[in-house]
């Protein structure tokens, strides 16, 4: 995973602020935007005898605060905020969540870069309950999948606002489903496309200080 180097410093700083500071109105903590590339989300590991791509059918759990993948027993805690499997993105909140957190998400149609303040009522946030997902896994919602070209693309202008497992806020934008963030050529074979997909590239900003500003 590529991680902006400034982030390490930032996390250290914000952790410090959270641990000792109660002054939540401090305006100078606009979080950096971090880009994550090649987050595997049930990538294709083989093909069925009929040629259907097969993965491990596993979610990859991710902590926005830590900017890292959460594995093992920690996936049953509120250490993770969001998890990825193919086109499914779940939050650590609701009956489908394994961590018992109270995370929730809202999908907005707005420019990620220009979204500076969470101004949503609590009712705008949803959790994952049964077949109802906070982030709708169907094409046409926040991504498209062409049955002509077999290429999946995130729809520009879709910004996820995430209330994390520990009640902080983050904004997030999916940039690509493909390895290294490079969409395969339209003319590439379906198999090649399948082998390169479900490597998420996304960017996010996590507001660790409990405010709603980005």
């Amino acid at each position, binding site marked *: 995973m590529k991680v902006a180097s400034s982030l390490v410093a930032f996390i250290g700083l914000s952790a410090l602020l959270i641990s000792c500071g109660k002054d939540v109105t401090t305006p100078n903590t606009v979080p950096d935007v971090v880009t994550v590339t090649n987050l595997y989300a049930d990538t294709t590991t*083989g*093909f*069925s005898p*009929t*040629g*259907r*791509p097969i993965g491990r059918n596993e979610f990859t759990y991710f902590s926005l605060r830590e900017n890292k993948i959460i594995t093992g027993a920690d996936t049953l805690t509120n250490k993770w905020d969001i998890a990825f499997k*193919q*086109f*499914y993105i779940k939050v650590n909140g609701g009956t489908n969540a394994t961590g018992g957190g109270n995370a929730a998400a809202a999908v907005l*149609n707005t*420019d*990620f*870069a220009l979204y500076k303040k969470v101004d949503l009522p609590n009712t705008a946030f949803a959790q994952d309950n049964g*077949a109802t997902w906070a982030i709708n*896994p*169907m*094409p*046409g919602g926040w*991504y*498209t999948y*062409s*049955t*002509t*070209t*077999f*290429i999946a*693309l*995130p*729809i*520009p*202008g879709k910004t996820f606002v995430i209330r994390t497992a520990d009640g902080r806020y983050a904004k997030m*934008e999916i*940039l690509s489903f493909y390895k290294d*963030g490079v*969409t395969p050529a*339209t*003319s590439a*074979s*379906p*198999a*090649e496309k*399948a*082998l390169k997909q479900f490597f998420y590239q996304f*960017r996010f900003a996590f507001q660790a200080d409990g405010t709603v500003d980005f």
Partner: protein
Amino acid sequence: MHSHRLLFLFGFTCVLTLVAIGQQVQDTLSGSSDDVVVTATRTERKFGNVAVPVTVIQKQAITATQLRRLNELLQEQTGIFVTSGSGSGSFGGGIFGNGAQLQGMSPEYTLILINGEPIVGRQGGTLNLSRLTLGNIKRIEIVKGPSSSLYGSEAMGGVINIITEMPATPQVQLNAKAGGYGLADVNAEGTYANDKTRLQLAYNYYRMGAIDFDETQYGNQHDPFNAHTAQLNMSHAFSNRLKLVAYGRYYYEKSDNAYEVPDPNLHPVRISGNTTINDANVNTSLLYSVSKKVKTALRLYATGYHSSQQLIQDSDKSDYYTDDFRQQFYRIENQTDITLPANNTLSAGGGWVYEKLNTTRYEGMRDNSIVYGFVQNEWRPSDKVNLIGGLRYDVNREYASRFSPKLAVRYSPTKKLKLTASYGAGFKAPDFRQLYLSFVNNASGGYAIFGANEISIATLQQMQQQGFVATILPKAYDMQQLKPEVSRGFNLGALYTFCEKLQAEANLFNNDIENQILFDVIALRANGSQVFSYFNVQRSFTRGAEVNVRWYALPGLQVSGGYQLLFTGDKAVVDQIEAGKMYGREESTNDVYKMTRSDYYGLPNRSRHMANLKLLYTHAPTGWQVSVRGAWRNAWGTFDRDGNGVITRDDEKAPGFLLLNAAVSKNFGKRYTLAVGAENILNHRDPENLPNIPGINAFVSFSVLLQKQNHHTK
């Protein structure tokens, strides 16, 4: 085929009956001159009196180009965009061969006729025009804009009608063309003609070698193929009042397929095999003049199309893919034209269509029948004005019935100026694919697509019990009987003759298309893959202007040019943009921006600007002829790459290009003609977007015409 025989039997019974009744009245159908148009009104009309936008390409113009296939000829015409085997199939058409767009409307909305009867065998909605040879064509008539009031389904964007030739004198014509990329075209025609009977036999052989832009890669951009076309054309006048016209055509094409697919470890696996197409059509018409004022025609038509693909894996000869597609179409139709008092001409008719499909893609055999009636009246209060009103009603067994009106007016205030205005409605019936497809794609995630008649809430619930479907989505409850896709078109035209040598015409058009059929997700399978079905959802528009100029610049030199400006769009997308809800993404920075109306490049597979310029120089005394034609189109949309589903960025477009073709010919006496020339002189190559256009391709062609001097007076 059994039903073929029945139709013929019926036809000949009718012949005999009508022979008995009709003996003495003059045959008003003979003596048609070349400036006649039949497609606009389904009656013979002078070009100058036609009130809807029509292009007529005459035989001499076709011959001068030395082109041999319909797609090649059409891409040089103003306002006709020939799709090139790529681009978005959902609306632009094009992944299935070379189809023709008229006024920016998709190729699936262009009805293709030979002698007034429809050709079948569309793949993904597109009829591949390279199936049609230009040998023995008298003229091609193109009516632009919705024309279902006369032609019914498919005539949503317009009609291309190929009129085959029937020389009045006995002759034999041989023609051979050879060029690079293994191009060969041989055409032989023989005609017998006397006072009462004309008979023509024609045979065409066409082949093209592989087009391979990248020799390091196994496989071709365009596979080698060869095709045979045999045609029989005949007419017989039993009397001055009764005439029989028959036409038969058989087409066979075989292409050799070879390509590589990667296995799970991305090691190449070689696939090979072949694709064959068989296509036959037979029409028989009886034309009978009941009196000087009443003419009637009985038309019997049968056509069939069969395509088959067999692919094997080279390594172990195991079956890789098999596809078989058979379509049959039968029609019986009567049309009666009556001259009424006060300069009215009434045409009325009706017919019955039976259509049948059998394919590996659907479950079993599917059929459908249509009964229709139409009426049209043309009123000519004076030489300056004619008014046409028409309507047609189609009653269908499998989907909602359709009513298609038309109104057209011509006004010529002076001899130099013709003004026209027309309104027409068009429709395209849901096709068999949209009704009956039953397809589970195991190769790409296990998604499934079902035609609207194959699926219902009840069947979905059944599938849920059987475990095929996990979740039924709310969209599934919107499913209902598919309605035909419909279009409404307005045209405003002016034709001005400055002098004998210079003529210009302009036409403004606006087409609104509704109920376009697209698929949407109705359910989810346990593995998360989707189940689709078809819905009447999309609304779009095409509008623009077309200009054509013809100028006899010097003795023997004809200069013609044309231009089309085209704006298209999906109305829902335009609404979204105007509501500020659509974004685009910059390719380099990944940053998003709010789209404005000008960021939207309209429907895929459309060029905003298309232009052509043609020079034809004929020096009759020496028999030299030079034809130079340039056809240009600017960039057109191909595939979305930034996720907003529409064409915005440059990497979502194919670059525009200029296609330059030229031919020089010399007649040696009346019998022999030698021609040389080249196509794609500028050597424009675009493997991804224009796989069927090779680089520059020089050719040589030779023809012989043996004609008996005509002693008959017609």
